[in-house]
């Protein structure tokens, strides 16, 4: 016997007595306009980016990293204006001073203010890092996209070339380039962009290979889109998540490579300060005046942490599977 939900008059079978008594006008026909939306979309329109940003915001480490980077960027651009010191102003009488109210990071052996030099170093290092990453991204997208989309022999040849390039250690290329092109910022950028795009290319290629079989790619072909249009209008934008994450990790990698090169002495030349040269300069006085190496080294480390946290945060934020 089916249980009766409403009132307790169990023996009655007439619907009348099951219903509450209600006023007559309620049984008027409902107007079309009053019915409410039947093609309604209730939830607010959330684009891919806004959705990703709200997820990114929740990752505390990533936000700390972002704040650090922003502060660093502002300091690097505007900081030196507020200081009375310049990066190459020597004051030999004041050499090798420990950190003080005057010189927040102390001075180096030529009496140059390390704090200002560090800020200038930030400009150079961040510039190199981001520009190198941007160039790598463009090359990687084009190379990986074409290889993945066209497949077959094109793909095979392109990937074999890449395999051979990876087989040879990066340092070899970089040193060769630096030897031939000298020690300017441009040559460092060229050197850093020689092989770092390969990682991006591989990621892009694997994304494109997966996505090119999606029905919307087929639909685009059906409409008559050219291959390049499908690749750059449909497939690449849908791979942007993993691409951005890979590129974000390229930045600290470039910064570190430049620092390492400068540390080896084949990077930027004096008097231009990059964090790497600052560390290099501080080697002789490592045990006597450790602060001279400490600050630039810390800057490198913190910046790399920050960028790595941001990269991790972005990877989670941009993963479409996590969208609710």
């Amino acid at each position, binding site marked *: 016997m089916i249980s009766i939900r409403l009132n307790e008059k169990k023996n009655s079978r007439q619907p009348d007595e099951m219903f509450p008594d209600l006023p007559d006008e309620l049984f008027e026909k409902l107007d079309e306009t*009053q019915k409410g939306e039947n093609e309604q979309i209730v939830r607010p329109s959330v684009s891919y980016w806004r959705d990703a940003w709200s997820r990114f915001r929740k990752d505390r480490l990533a936000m700390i990293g972002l704040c650090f980077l922003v502060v660093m960027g502002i300091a690097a651009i505007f900081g030196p204006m507020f200081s009375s010191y310049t990066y190459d102003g020597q004051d030999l009488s004041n050499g090798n001073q420990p950190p003080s109210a005057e010189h927040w990071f102390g001075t180096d052996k030529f009496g140059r203010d390390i704090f200002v030099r560090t800020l200038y170093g930030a400009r150079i290092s961040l510039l190199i890092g981001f520009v190198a990453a941007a160039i790598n991204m463009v090359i990687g997208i084009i190379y990986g996209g074409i290889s993945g989309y066209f497949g077959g022999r094109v793909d095979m040849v392109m990937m074999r070339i890449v395999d051979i390039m990876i087989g040879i250690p990066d340092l070899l290329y970089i040193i060769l380039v630096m030897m031939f092109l000298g020690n300017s910022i441009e040559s460092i950028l060229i050197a850093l962009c020689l092989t770092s795009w390969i990682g991006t290319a591989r990621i892009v290629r694997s994304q494109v290979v997966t996505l090119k079989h999606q029905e919307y790619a087929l639909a685009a072909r059906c409409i008559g889109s050219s291959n390049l249009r499908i690749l750059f209008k449909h497939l690449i934008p849908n791979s942007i998540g993993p691409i951005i994450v890979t590129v974000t990790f390229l930045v600290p990698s470039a910064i570190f490579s430049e620092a390492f090169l400068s540390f080896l002495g084949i990077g930027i030349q004096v008097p231009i300060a990059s964090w790497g040269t600052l560390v290099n300069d501080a080697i002789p006085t490592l045990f006597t005046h450790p602060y001279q190496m400490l600050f630039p080294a810390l800057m490198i480390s913190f910046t790399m942490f920050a960028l790595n946290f941001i990269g991790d945060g972005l990877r989670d934020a941009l993963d479409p599977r996590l969208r609710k």
Partner: protein
Amino acid sequence: MKLLEVKNLRTTFQIDAGQVQAVRGISFHIDKGETIGIVGESGSGKSVTMLSIMQLLPDNARVEADRLAFDGVDLLKLDAKEMRRIQGNEIGMIFQDPMTSLNPLFTIGDQLMEPIRIHQKVSKAEARKRAIEVLKLVEIPSPESRLNQYPHEFSGGMRQRVMIAIAISCNPKLLIADEPTTALDVTIQAQILDLMRDLKKKFDTSIVLITHDLGVVASMCSRILVMYGGQIVEEGKTREVFYNPKHPYTWGLIRSIPKAREGRKEKLIPIPGSPPDLLAPPKGCPFTARCEHAMKVCAELPPVSVPVSDTHRAACWLMHPKAAKRRPEVTKHGI
């Protein structure tokens, strides 16, 4: 004897944008040996209902009910361990997609023997014997050799048979089949439905068949529950629901499937619009926005479920005596 008793089940999901009320107060029961069908479309809450009873929902779900009893046992009072004893053992479940419900890394034999060993605590050899028996029951040829094969070596229909085998391996009292044949070809679907009917006759298992296919319920089920917007809008014996439906949604469903009697090409009358978003369920009857008979009361108050006969109920304001003049003619062959 009531095998399953559900009173006022409510299930909500917590998401970023708010709370989705997937099931909004439903009550029903299943008797021993019965086959009932739960019919509804996406978002109606039909799958969530059974998953709530089985406690197979993700962490962000909350299940509440006035009463939830299986074979006399109050499910609400069980802890996870006791619930596991019921899952797979007394209640078996068959899911929709045979491609993804079997683990590709393990052999069919392993997956089949697992519930047998867990629930019946027998040796591996015993479990293997039982597994072969069950494979024979679901009409899989050469079961001994197939035990060692992997899911990808089976076709869709075969995989679904394996799913059924796993579900019945411990002789459950209740079998829940959630869209078991939707992903299968029509001739294979017919085979699987025949199999389920045969098994039911042999073992007197109660079956809950969740589907959107009215054709399937017409031939398989003795009773039907029609769900919409997280609620049961109509329930009754199969013939009652098909030949004397009382709810406009049921009318809509019946009118929107082609029946094509000989020589006549009937016009399909679809239900306009789309189901409501249960993030913000409407105040009154959930079907109001799509109902051509909607009255002012429908938008204001949720309708009460009233009996049409001993076995037939519907929740619609059209059944109120004051709505008499709004009721359309309903005959066996059309509305």
